[in-house]
């Protein structure tokens, strides 16, 4: 029987595992922790589907057009159309599988407005869709476990793929006691989340550290559109991190403002009278950046206000319960009475492992879905499309993997795994106990967030590359029970280099990639940026959009 290994148990990973099990495979899902701890639970606003229950004449085509337009024509149109066509049945299916959605007066799944979309298309559950989706899918996964189709393994951290004749046949993981375990697979599906591990002040989970992406990239999986990093316009700054204020806050009527001449200046409404506060996220973030850089930051700081206090109390405290609660908890602000100070912060990576519309990576035997994969979102993601992309992509990845996977003998796997584990141990022995991995990563994160800021320019990017070259990967060590983190650091340095080089080579401004030295969009760059790593060296090329891998 075919055996599929899924790395990650968020929305993409769970969906992939469930689908592969439905198709008759045995599945092992491996993760650092339980699904309830995954970054997916943090999703706030909703999931997009043209359910067309609001009398607005919505359609899957309209959903596709909005997605492609918001992604500034970098997304694979065919892949997007397939996703949006599947969205209505997918969302209805989730509800039937027990995911709780808010309902309208007629008992339909309720829909709300979201940025960059003219129609009400975002199915939601108050402002905590992620938790509801994870709860529903976890139950389904549990049922598959009980049927004996799925085995969930936690407290295992991915270290590297096991390769044989150019094909991935499994992966090596590190356990809590520091020992290594290799798991054989006929196909591997990476569903390991975004690259938050090489940036600081982002809104994501500490578990989505980019180590799987970095490891696969160094082993030969190409990466795409790495420069496309979404700054979410509304986050609150806390001592530990930036916390997302869901776009639903503006979808429900929240307004962005700052003070000018002693009055509230609703700059988005003045600059974009049509889309107002619900323009796509890249535009809203750049507008906030401009307001603040022009000296109009609220209270003289790099921040603007989010006005919710004028909304009905029921909206603030019920529909936006999570927003009002986190504002109270982390800022001591009652959102029903005063505005919330917000700043843009890194929120989502549109780029990642280069996949085709069937979710194949360029590394044979490896498939990728969810935020670790570059698919659907182009140069800028629409709110409500990440949850959709993760679930739909996980399903497609599983279907492709099951169809194409090939088995190798246990002997072949054991030999290859032994070599891989021995390589890992050898590499680790070269590390000198000089800098703690946790601190080296902190410096890397600071550098990357500074370099890949909302507005980029050649000198800044080159300075980032130069500083990056100054890191000594072999001088980094981690405690014995997580020693492989030191290897991940080496990989992350290479991935970080690929991110900056991608930004440097894209000499235009498009979506979330804004260059002060190339402020205009150029047709020449309506292409996929592809980063490739060979023997630790990174090269960049541009591919036509929508390539398929054999």
């Amino acid at each position: 029987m075919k055996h599929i290994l899924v790395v990650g148990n968020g929305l993409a990973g769970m969906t992939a595992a469930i689908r592969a099990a439905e198709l008759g495979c045995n599945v092992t899902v491996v993760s650092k922790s339980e699904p309830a701890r995954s970054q997916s639970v943090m999703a706030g606003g909703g999931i997009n589907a043209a359910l067309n229950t609001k009398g607005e004449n919505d359609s899957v085509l309209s959903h596709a057009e909005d997605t492609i337009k918001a992604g500034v024509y970098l997304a694979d149109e065919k892949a997007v159309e397939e996703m949006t066509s599947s969205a209505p049945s997918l969302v209805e299916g989730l509800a039937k599988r027990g995911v709780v959605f808010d309902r309208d007066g007629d008992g339909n799944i309720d829909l709300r407005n979201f940025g960059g979309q003219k129609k009400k298309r975002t199915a939601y559950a108050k402002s905590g869709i992620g938790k509801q989706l994870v709860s529903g899918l976890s139950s389904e996964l549990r049922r598959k476990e009980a049927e004996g189709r799925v085995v969930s393994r936690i407290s295992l951290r991915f270290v590297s793929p096991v390769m044989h004749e150019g094909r991935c046949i499994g992966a090596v993981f590190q356990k809590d006691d520091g020992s290594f375990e290799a798991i054989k697979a006929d196909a591997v599906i990476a569903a390991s989340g975004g690259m938050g591990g090489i940036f600081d002040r982002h809104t994501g989970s500490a578990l989505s550290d980019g180590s799987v992406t970095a490891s696969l990239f160094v082993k030969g999986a190409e990466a795409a559109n790495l420069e496309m990093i979404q700054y979410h316009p509304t986050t609150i700054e806390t001592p530990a991190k930036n916390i997302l204020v869901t776009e639903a806050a503006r979808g429900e009527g929240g307004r962005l403002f700052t003070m000018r001449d002693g009055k509230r200046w609703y700059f988005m409404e003045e600059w974009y009278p049509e889309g107002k506060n619900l323009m796509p996220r890249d535009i809203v973030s750049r507008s906030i950046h401009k307001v603040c850089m022009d000296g109009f930051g609220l209270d003289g700081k790099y921040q603007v206000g989010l006005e919710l206090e004028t909304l009905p109390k029921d909206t603030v405290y019920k529909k936006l319960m999570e927003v009002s609660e986190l504002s109270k908890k982390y800022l001591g602000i009652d959102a029903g009475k005063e505005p919330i100070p917000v700043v843009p912060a890194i929120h989502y990576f549109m780029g990642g492992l280069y996949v085709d519309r069937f979710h194949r990576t360029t590394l044979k035997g490896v498939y990728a879905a969810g935020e670790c994969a570059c698919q659907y979102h182009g140069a800028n993601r629409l709110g409500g499309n990440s949850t959709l992309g993760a679930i739909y992509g996980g399903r497609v990845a599983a279907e492709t993997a099951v169809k194409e996977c090939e088995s190798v003998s246990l002997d072949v796997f054991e030999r290859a795994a032994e070599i891989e584990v021995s390589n890992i141990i050898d590499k680790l022995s070269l590390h000198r106990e000089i800098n703690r991995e946790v601190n080296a990563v902190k410096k890397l994160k600071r550098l990357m967030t500074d370099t890949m800021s909302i507005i980029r320019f050649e000198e800044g990017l080159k300075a980032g590359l130069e500083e990056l070259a100054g890191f000594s990967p072999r001088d980094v060590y981690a405690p014995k029970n997580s020693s492989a983190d030191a290897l991940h650091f080496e990989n992350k340095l290479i991935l970080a280099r690929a991110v900056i080089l991608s930004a440097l080579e894209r000499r235009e401004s498009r979506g979330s990639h804004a260059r002060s030295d190339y402020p205009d969009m150029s047709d020449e760059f309506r292409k996929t940026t592809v980063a490739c790593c060979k023997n630790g060296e990174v090269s960049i090329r541009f591919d036509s959009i929508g390539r398929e891998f054999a």
Partner: protein
Amino acid sequence: MKGTISVKRNSRWAKFSIDAEANTPVTMILDELNSRETLLEADGSPAEPIVWECSCDQGVCGSCAMVINGSPRLACSAFFGEVGPDVKVEPLSKFPLVADLKVDRSSISKSLSEMKIWLEDDDALVSDVDMQYTSASCMLCGCCLEVCPNYSGEGKFFGAVGMNACFRTAEQLSGSAKRERLSYFAKHGDAGCSKSLACQVVCPAKIPLSVVISRLNRERFLSVFYRNK
């Protein structure tokens, strides 16, 4: 603000000197300790980095549940100004210890599997959306089990986390599948629960467990008398 944090490491307390703002969460304090080039206890003796779990760092995922100053709670939502200046942190005691503040909470998953916390077919009932939403917000953090006078980690009683999961599943099912879940509630929940409701007090997701339990009891009563419900 200067202070100390004492971390229970196996059976001994290790005390560290700290200096943090009042709005610093305990997660950030632990992170700062692990970032020190050389981690020394307050008495100057060297220490290994502290093992603990963290994911969302904003009170949604339940990873960082631990006992802080004697009460189970999420470290990301416990601020130094409130729990300091001398903070005591220790691992949840009703799960096997992995290391320092990290415990193995897989017993929760096992109990949910034993209670068949899933739907039998793809046709979930939509009834009380608000209560279903609240119930599904459970983080499986284990705080409720820590304070429960009846839960020991052994035996048939699965605690509030199990009863809450049973509630959501039973609400979405009907007929014999529903009755089966209600019987699990009786066996693994109600029979062992002395209704101290300490679980409700500490639940970081603010799940009204008294309502959950009373509604399950009502459903169970109805299912006995009205077999077709």
